[in-house]
């Protein structure tokens, strides 16, 4: 079931996710990658344990005197959960992503961008945005620079750019300085989940068809 994932989340992203400090769109990408990747799951659990160690060793601030009594009163009326509410994977969409889409690939409301390229913007908080990309084999995602951070997680197929090849489960982390031209490999359609914390800025000299549409 697992393919070999070669491109992982950075320590910084995982730490910020563990601390609860990322915008929603990035949280979604991190949660989706961790769902696919035992390595990053193990790293994340280690960071959670670090949070636990911090909590354990930090100075305590006394609670008010009646707080325990109040809490005991409160739990009197509370029922206890017996099991976790199930979150399900739908095909190539791990559970957290399937939750945003409302199912699998067939539930995505794609918008055509030309040349067979499609995208669907997912509903997240405004400080960053997430979208699904559908790129037929051989098609390029336009060359762009970033004003901020961009994460691209491959869910199906693969793309290549100047840096490397990215297959299922791989995540590319592109920062401000990076200029790259991802091209989908021939064969299976490449489907990616991407998040940016700033609008993309396009700077190819020759305008490409998809550019104006890809702007978020």
């Amino acid at each position, binding site marked *: 079931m697992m393919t070999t994932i070669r491109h992982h989340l950075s320590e910084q992203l995982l730490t910020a996710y563990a601390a609860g400090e990322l915008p929603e769109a990035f949280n979604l990408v991190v949660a989706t990658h961790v769902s696919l990747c035992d390595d990053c799951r193990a790293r994340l659990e280690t960071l959670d344990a670090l*949070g636990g*160690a911090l909590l354990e060793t930090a100075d305590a601030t006394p609670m008010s005197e009646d707080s325990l009594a109040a809490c005991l009163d409160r739990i009197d009326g509370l029922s206890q959960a017996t099991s976790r509410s199930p979150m399900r994977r739908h095909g190539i969409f791990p559970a957290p992503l399937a939750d945003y889409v409302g199912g699998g690939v067939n539930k995505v409301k794609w918008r055509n961008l030309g040349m067979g390229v499609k995208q669907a913007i997912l509903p997240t908080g405004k400080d960053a945005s997430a979208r699904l990309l559908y790129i037929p084999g051989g098609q390029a995602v336009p060359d762009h620079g970033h004003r901020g951070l961009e994460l691209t997680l491959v869910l199906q197929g693969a793309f290549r750019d100047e840096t490397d090849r990215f297959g299922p489960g791989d995540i590319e982390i592109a920062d401000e300085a990076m200029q790259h031209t991802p091209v989908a490999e021939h064969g299976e359609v490449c489907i990616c989940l991407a998040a940016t914390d700033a609008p993309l800025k396009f700077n190819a000299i020759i305008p490409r068809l998809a550019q104006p549409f890809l702007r978020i």
Partner: protein
Amino acid sequence: MMLDAHQTEKTDAPLVARQYAVAEHKVRSRKDGSAVQADGIETDWAALVLRVRDHQDRAAFAALFRHFAPRVKAFLMKSGADATLAEECAQDVMATLWQKAALFDPSRASVATWVFTIARNRRIDALRKARRPEPEDLPWGPEPEPDQAEALEVQQDTERLGVALAQLPEKQRALIERAFYGDLSHSEIAAETGLPLGTIKSRIRLALERLRQQMS
């Protein structure tokens, strides 16, 4: 770091703690609360959570509350909550612990780690309001009778992390604290934390691989 109940009692609200220690003692003498070790040198927090899960044990809950609520309150105040909000949220966190005791898996996380994740999520709700999707659950849930050896190892991991944290130079420790209290800029998060996370990481990964093999 040892989980020394006597030592921690001193830093908690001492009067309230003593008062409930007496109440708890009465409850324990009525039942055969052999798993409750609140007066011991080391407190087995995981055993207390399992007593909450299996017996709705209010004395066990009180012991957990006395230890963790003041730490959660401190954590939330360092994250920018005022005392009133932090106290309210610490109560919520402890009520959640009561409700979700069945979802706690001592072979995957220490109680401190689990409480940290609940507190983090409560903080996101209270202060930031950014949705934070969770990774997909592993295909196996908590065991009704968790592996004792694994649970102990997980507990020791958190303790070792606590020791490692305490031994860090002040500057580094402060950096980690600020990352978890949500007080770091992106560029500051990028700085290396310098923690010896490697061994724990690989141990968790090994456990995951073993479990996956058992599943397939």
